[in-house]
C-alpha cells in the first residue's frame, strides 16, 4: 500500500488537475435528461382533463379536496423526511407525494368530510410509504391503502357521493365541513345502487331496472361519471404517448374487465352489468391508467404487467359483483400488490443468449 501511494505522488502529473473526489462519477459520464420529477409532473398534468370533467359535473368541491390532500401529503412527507434525516427539498420536489394525494382525493367522495381525505393521505404517506423507506420502496400503492383503510373504517362516509349536476358549491362546502345536513346533494354511485339493489332487494331487481329507474344514472357508466372517465382516458393516452407508461397495463386491465363483464352479462344480463358500464364507472378508468400503472408497487416485467393488470381487473369485477364493498379497485390493487413480487420473480424475461432454455432463470 505505501509503495503504490508513494508512486502515485511521484508520478502524478499536474498538467491536468486530476479529480479524485469520491463524488466524481464513473462511466457513463453523461446521462439522458430525465428525472423522477418530470415523470411525476406529467402524471399530474395527465390527471387534469379528468379533474376538469369532475368539476363540470360534480362541482368545485373536488378542487378543495385535492388542495387539502396535497397540503396534508406535503406536510406528512416533510415530517417523515425530517424525522428520517433525508434531504427535504430533493424529495418534496419529486412530486410523488402530490400524485398520491391527487389520487386519494379523486377516489374519495368529493363531499366527504374534510378530515377523511386528510386522514387517508396522512396514513398513505406515513404508513404505506415512509415506513417502508419512502419513494420507490413501498410494496403497496399508498393511495389504495388509504382508500381501503377508510372504506373499512368509515363505510358510511365513504359512500356519500355528490349527485351529478349538483354543483352548488356552498352546499358542498357545508357537507365537507359538516356545517349542515347533506342528504339533499348526495346520492349513491351507480355501482353502489346496483350492489344494494341486487344484494338486498330480492329477485325483482335487475341491472336494467336499477340503472334505468334511477334518474342520476347515465347511459353508459352513470351520468357524469362516464365523462370523468373519458377525461382520465384522454390523460392516460397522453401518458402513453409520452412513454411514461407502457401499453401493457391499461390494455390488459380494460380488456380483462371488458371480457369478464361481457361474458357474464351475456350469460345473465339481469344479474350482471355490461362491460361498458364496468369500464366507465367507478374507478375503472382512473385505475387503468393511473393506479394499476404505479411501477413501484406493481409488476415490472412485460408479461408480469399483463398478468398484474388482468388480475386487478378480474378481482375488481369479482368484488364489485359478489363482494361487500361497492368498488373493488382498491382491494384488487392491494391484493395484486401482494402478489407482485412473485409475479415479477416468475415472469423474468429470458436473458440475452439464454432464450433456448427458458426454465433456467429464476
Amino acid at each position, binding site marked *: 500500500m505505501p509503495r503504490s501511494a508513494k508512486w502515485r505522488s511521484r508520478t502524478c502529473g499536474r498538467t491536468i488537475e486530476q479529480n479524485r473526489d469520491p463524488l466524481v462519477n464513473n462511466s457513463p459520464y453523461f446521462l439522458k435528461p430525465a428525472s423522477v420529477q418530470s415523470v411525476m409532473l406529467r402524471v399530474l398534468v395527465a390527471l387534469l382533463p379528468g379533474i376538469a370533467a369532475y368539476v363540470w359535473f360534480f362541482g368545485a368541491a373536488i378542487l378543495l379536496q385535492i388542495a387539502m390532500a396535497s397540503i396534508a401529503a406535503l406536510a406528512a412527507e416533510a415530517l417523515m423526511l425530517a424525522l428520517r434525516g433525508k434531504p427535504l427539498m430533493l424529495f418534496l420536489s419529486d412530486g410523488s407525494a402530490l400524485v398520491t394525494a391527487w389520487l386519494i382525493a379523486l377516489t374519495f367522495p368529493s363531499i366527504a368530510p374534510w378530515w377523511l381525505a386528510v386522514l387517508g393521505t396522512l396514513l398513505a404517506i406515513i404508513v404505506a410509504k415512509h415506513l417502508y423507506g419512502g419513494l420507490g420502496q413501498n410494496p403497496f400503492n399508498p393511495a389504495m391503502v388509504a382508500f381501503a383503510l377508510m372504506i373499512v373504517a368509515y363505510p358510511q362516509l365513504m359512500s356519500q357521493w355528490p349527485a351529478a349536476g349538483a354543483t352548488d358549491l356552498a352546499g358542498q362546502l357545508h357537507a365537507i365541513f359538516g356545517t349542515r345536513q347533506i342528504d339533499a346533494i348526495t346520492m349513491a354511485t351507480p355501482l353502489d345502487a346496483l350492489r344494494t339493489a341486487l344484494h338486498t332487494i330480492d329477485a325483482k331487481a335487475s341491472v336494467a331496472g336499477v340503472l334505468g329507474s334511477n334518474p342520476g344514472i347515465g347511459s353508459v357508466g352513470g351520468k357524469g361519471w362516464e365523462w370523468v372517465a373519458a377525461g382520465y382516458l384522454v390523460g392516460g393516452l397522453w401518458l402513453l404517448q409520452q412513454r411514461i407508461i407502457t401499453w401493457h397495463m391499461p390494455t390488459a386491465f380494460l380488456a380483462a374487465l371488458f371480457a369478464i363483464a361481457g361474458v357474464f352479462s351475456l350469460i345473465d344480463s339481469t344479474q350482471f352489468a355490461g362491460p361498458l358500464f364496468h369500464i366507465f364507472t367507478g374507478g375503472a378508468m382512473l385505475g387503468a391508467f393511473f393506479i394499476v400503472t404505479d411501477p413501484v408497487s406493481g409488476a415490472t416485467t412485460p408479461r408480469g404487467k399483463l398478468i398484474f393488470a388482468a388480475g386487478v381487473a378480474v378481482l375488481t369485477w369479482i368484488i364489485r359483483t359478489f363482494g*361487500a*364493498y361497492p368498488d373493488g379497485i382498491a382491494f384488487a390493487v392491494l*391484493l395484486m400488490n401482494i402478489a407482485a413480487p412473485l409475479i415479477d420473480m416468475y415472469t423474468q424475461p429470458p436473458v440475452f443468449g439464454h432464450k433456448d432454455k427458458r426454465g433456467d432463470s429464476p
Partner: protein
Amino acid sequence: MTSYLFIILGAVLVNNVVFVRILGLCPFMGVSKKLETAVGMGAATTFVLTLGCGASFVIDRWLLIPNQLEYLRTLSFIVTIAAIVQLTELVIQKTSPLLHQVLGIYLPLITTNCAVLGIPLLNVSLRHNFLESLLFGFGSAIGFTLALILFAGIRERLEAADVPVHFRGTAIAMITAGLMSLAFMGFAGLDKYK
C-alpha cells in the same frame, strides 16, 4: 358439491386463516424470510393439518363424544397433533431424506402453530362432517401456504428496502401483514353471495 367448493374457497380466501382468523402468526412471521422455506413450511403444514383434522375428527366423534369427554377436546387434540407431527418427521427422515431436508426443520415448528389446533376446534364448532373437516383443514392449510408464500415474496424484496431503523425486521413485517389483511378484507362477503 358447490358447498364443498365454498368450504375450500372460503377457507383459502374469505376466511384466510392468517389474514382474517389471525391464527398461526408465529410461523407466519418466523418462516417467511425466504421463499424456499415458506414453500417448505406451507407444504409441511398442509400435510399435517389435513391429517390432523381427520384424526381429531375421528377422536372427537368416536372417543370423546361417546364418553362425554368433550372437555378434554383441547388436550387430546394437542397430544394427537404433536404425535402426528413427530411421527411424520421420523417417517419422512427415514424414507425420504430429500423431502426431510426440505421440510425437516419446519415439522417440529408446526406443533407450535396455533392454526393446527385452531382449525380442528373450528371444525367441531362448525359441525363439519368428516369430509368437510378434511376439506376445511386442507383449504385452511392452502390459505396458510398462500399467505406464507405471498408474504415471503414481499419480504424478500423488503429485505433490501430502506426501512427506518426502528421499523426494521418484525415491526415492518407486522405492518405488512396488517396491510395484507386489509387487502384480504376485500373478499368479505364473497362466501355469502346468494
